[in-house]
């Protein structure tokens, strides 16, 4: 059997991208994507793995295998392929294509990595790849967003490294597994948390995703957070804190999603929210929780990317990306609308769609931790509300103006179709997914309790929609998040480095320079300089103890001395002073002799 880590297929493939022209690149990317998927599927679960000895003393396991990895690898490859397919609707910038391929590579790399060092390397690669994607956007905001994105991920990566190193030292191995406690745990959590968009380090996500290109945001939404979640799951052994963190994310993301106007920003918060579900499940710590987390991850990858694809298609066709500007696209883009509904319902967790199945698993797993379930349920309700809001405003309300020039292009439709199909398939037959889970957890989306649960969520949501009528007010949207704080801090640091620091340094060098000048000038005529210095230092006393005319005279003489001070060394000196000096020195010797 082939045992090529898929990551290397993608990485090898992207090297050729720059020299390919036009559609050839797209084609190549598709081939690579397919190959990668193939490789991911074909890796036997019994594989012994591939180990490289790169750094002395550290074994780098680039390929290791277990059911989770198999599942995640396939999902990531598949989603990657979909993203590539979606992206082929036009000639992409090479950077972007490279970014997408690199993202897939990095994500699969993380998945198959057997040790922390490898994880870390791919982790950073993922950040860079995402940065490529973001910066490839035409949106002018992408520069700043990408920058902030990067800083967060560098921070995360560095923290992760710290955590990893701590783990290696405390546990003695770099193999992926439970970390120690203390600093290592915190660092690791921060590191993973950044990528998983855990609050309060989530702000990069709603910041960057909306400004990426349409196909870029699809690729983005698939990998970063999900890879983090996967790693979280792989490490395992987290406490309830993580579970609550997940719950908080779920609620927080959901609420913010509700408040958004920009459709991709809405979806971005949704990513946070759904990530919260996964983390909550993983944080529950049970095998079922792990299974649920991974399952939800798989599901979410599919329907969330579907929704991003839809949003992308909408933006592509209309050139607008805000709920308040859109409307009535169902007629113009019927297929897209259909896929959107499928994706939306999947997100809302309606039974029959993948979200229904996996969310149910999460809720089940969450019951192991007190108070977790209610929060998640509330989040689910809100999720449903914003999904409705999303669908309604884009597709069904009365159009503020006709603007679409037809349905999405074929590649988009294909990709969306694939994703929709999977969503529905998993929703209908959860076994497709759950069979792959090692924990053996099964989903019961159609069990009565679940139906009641889902029904309850749906009804509550409907009631709330009717009560609050949020649908009528597409409004400005609430785009303020705690990222304002971070930006302020960043500006502060920049200011510090630009103002006090550099001015301080300048001041020091100026002082030094003037000191040197003084010395240089003084050495031009030392006796006079000494004279001036003496007179100047006596001046205050003279001012205090003399009468005004005397002070005046004194100051005048001082001024005159200064004025007549030579700029250049005076040549030739009289002999008389020399002899006086001789006398003085001789006397000094004499005094020294006397006092010895």
């Amino acid at each position, binding site marked *: 059997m082939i045992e090529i880590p898929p990551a290397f297929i993608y990485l090898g493939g992207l090297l050729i991208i720059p020299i390919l022209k036009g559609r050839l690149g797209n084609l190549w990317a598709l081939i690579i994507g397919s190959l990668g998927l193939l490789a991911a599927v074909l890796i036997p679960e019994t594989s012994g793995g591939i180990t490289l000895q790169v750094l002395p003393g550290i074994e780098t396991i680039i390929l290791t295998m277990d059911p989770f990895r198999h599942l995640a690898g396939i999902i990531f490859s598949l989603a990657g392929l979909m993203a590539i397919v979606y992206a082929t609707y036009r000639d992409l910038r090479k950077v972007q294509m490279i970014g997408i391929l690199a993202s897939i590579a990095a994500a699969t790399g993380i998945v198959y990595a057997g040790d922390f060092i490898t994880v870390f390397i791919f982790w950073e690669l993922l950040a860079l790849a995402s940065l490529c994607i973001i910066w490839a956007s035409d949106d002018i905001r992408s520069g700043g967003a990408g920058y902030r994105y990067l800083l967060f991920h560098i921070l995360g990566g560095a923290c992760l490294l710290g955590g990893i190193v701590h783990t290696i030292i405390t546990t003695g191995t770099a193999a992926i597994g439970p970390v120690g406690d203390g600093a290592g745990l915190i660092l690791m959590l921060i590191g993973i948390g950044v990528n998983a968009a855990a609050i309060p380090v989530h702000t990069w996500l709603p910041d960057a995703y909306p400004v990426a290109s349409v196909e870029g945001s699809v690729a983005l939404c698939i990998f970063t957070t999900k890879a983090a979640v996967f790693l979280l799951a792989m490490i395992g052994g987290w406490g309830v804190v993580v579970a609550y963190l997940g719950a908080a994310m779920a609620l927080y993301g959901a609420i913010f999603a509700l408040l958004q106007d920009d459709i991709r920003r809405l979806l971005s918060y949704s990513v946070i929210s759904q990530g919260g579900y996964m983390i909550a499940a993983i944080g529950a710590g049970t095998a079922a929780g792990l299974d649920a987390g991974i399952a939800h991850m798989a599901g979410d990858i599919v329907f969330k990317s579907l929704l991003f694809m839809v949003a992308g298609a909408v933006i592509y066709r209309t050139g607008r990306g805000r709920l308040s500007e859109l409307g009535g696209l169902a007629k113009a883009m019927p297929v897209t609308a259909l896929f959107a509904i499928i994706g939306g319902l999947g997100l809302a967790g309606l039974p029959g769609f993948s979200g229904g199945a996996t969310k149910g698993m999460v809720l089940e797993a969450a019951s192991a931790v007190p108070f977790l379930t209610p929060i998640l349920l509330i989040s689910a309700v809100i999720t449903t509300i914003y999904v409705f809001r999303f669908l309604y405003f884009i597709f069904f309300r009365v159009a503020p103006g006709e603007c679409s020039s037809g349905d999405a292009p074929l590649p988009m439709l294909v990709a969306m179709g694939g994703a929709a199909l999977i969503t529905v398939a998993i929703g209908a037959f959860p076994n497709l997914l759950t069979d792959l889970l090692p924990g053996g957890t099964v989903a019961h989306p159609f069990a009565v309790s679940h139906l009641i649960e889902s029904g309850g969520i749906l009804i509550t949501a409907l009631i709330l929609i009717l009560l609050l009528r949020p649908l009528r007010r597409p409004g400005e949207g609430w785009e303020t998040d705690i990222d304002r704080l971070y930006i302020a801090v960043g500006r502060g640091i920049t200011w510090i480095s630009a103002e006090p620091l550099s001015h301080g340094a300048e001041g020091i060098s100026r002082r030094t320079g003037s000191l040197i000048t003084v010395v240089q*000038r003084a050495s031009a005529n030392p006796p006079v300089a000494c004279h001036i210095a003496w007179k100047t230092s006596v001046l205050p006393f003279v001012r205090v103890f003399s009468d005004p005319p005397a002070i005046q005279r004194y100051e005048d003489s001082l001024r005159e001395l200064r004025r007549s001070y030579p700029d250049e060394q005076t*040549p030739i000196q009289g002999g008389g002073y*020399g002899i006086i000096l*001789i006398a003085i020195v001789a006397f000094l010797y004499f005094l020294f002799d006397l006092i010895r």
Partner: protein
Amino acid sequence: MSIMEQLPVLLIIGPIIAALIILAAGWHDRRLCYPVMLLSITGQFIASLVLLLQVIQDGTIRYYLGGWAPPLGIELVIDSFSGFILSTIMLLALLAIVYARRSVEAEVPAEKIVSFYVLVQLLIIGLVGMTITGDVFNLYVFLEISSIATYTLIAGTRSPRSYVAGFNYLIMGSIAAGFILLGIGYLYVATGTLNMAEIAMLLPASYELSTVHAAFLFLMIGFSIKAAFFPLHLWLPDAYTESPSAVTVIISTVMAKVSVYAMIRILFTIFTTAYIIESFPVTEFILLIATIAIVAGAILAIAQNDLKRMLAYSSISQIGYIMFAVGVANQIALEGGLLHILGHAMMKGCLFMVAGLIIYRMGTSNMLELRGVAGTMPISCAAFALAGASMIGIPPTIGFMSKYYLVLGAFEAGYWLYAAVLLIGSLLAAGYIWRFIEIAYFGDHHHKGDQTTTPEGPISMIAPMVCLALLCLILGIFVEMPMEIIGPAAMILLGGI
């Protein structure tokens, strides 16, 4: 082997005869005096080397003039210290004479060349005499020979200003000579002899007499003036600046070194460490002044615009280094000090030669007018850079080695602060050396287009300069060689064997 035995005195008599021949030959034909001069100096140089070898092999050479043993007669003493200084100054003198020919042609009126060379020869006689004599009064006599020759050589030739410089030096020098004479008198009163070794032997009995203290004081002051030991240096900048280049080279290397030599002789051979460290701990005071000298000289040098003047102030600073060794007064520091005598002679000689060549070629030594001079005078400026590096104390030049010994000695003696100041002084040296290097090499590259193909100066001027610059480097690397002589010399000074 009688010639070998007579070598010490021939070292003085030979040149005296040579001086007479120069005068007579020069009267006949001016062109004759230079070859005679060169011949005589070469002979002296060879003789000094032979003597040095003898000293290394057989130990101290003592020569009783007239066959009268001290204290009646005068003796010439060549021990490793004076042998070392002797060969150093003769080397420098030889190179300076080689250098002098064209420089003098350019700077000294033709009708004065004969007397000029005679005076140079007399100056060297005086200095050699000062070096090898073992009698204090004889020292004084030779000091006066060299002084009078110097006054005139400084004043004689170049510019009207030089008269004033020469006159000022004359006044100072005469006072110095007077003080030295007075000091010698006190010593004589205290001991009844004039022979250095005997004085050293007899003196301890009267260490506590104020007469001896005064003798020490006046000798110290006198030689301080002659050696331009800060702050009694006032004559030096003008003298060095205004004298003709060749003279500057000679007095800055040979004369200054011999003055310092004499001072060290007085301090260590006559008064011995027992006096200057224990009875009257003047070394601490000297150390203090030397440190001030190092810094002050360097700072003053930085402020100069005239190249020669800058180098002159640098000499003040460098003499401070040598006196620093005296102040520390232990074996290692003294070795460093003696090495610095050699090193400074070579580097300052080289630097003044460069300055002279620049004057020869460019007609000025004002640094502000010398922008980009390295383009036209690459060899000179390279020599300057090398010797300058030595001055700063960049390893592996000789300047570094001596500085290293000095600092090592100072550390060993526990003079941390002074050593620190010494190091700062070398930094300041970088300040003034670099000033010229900046101007010469990096002053203005727009003017460098005129890469003239004409040689930058006569080969007779370039060769000694380059030779000295290379010596700075070579002797720095093979510093063991001079150290073989310097080690015993320092030991002798400290009262060892």
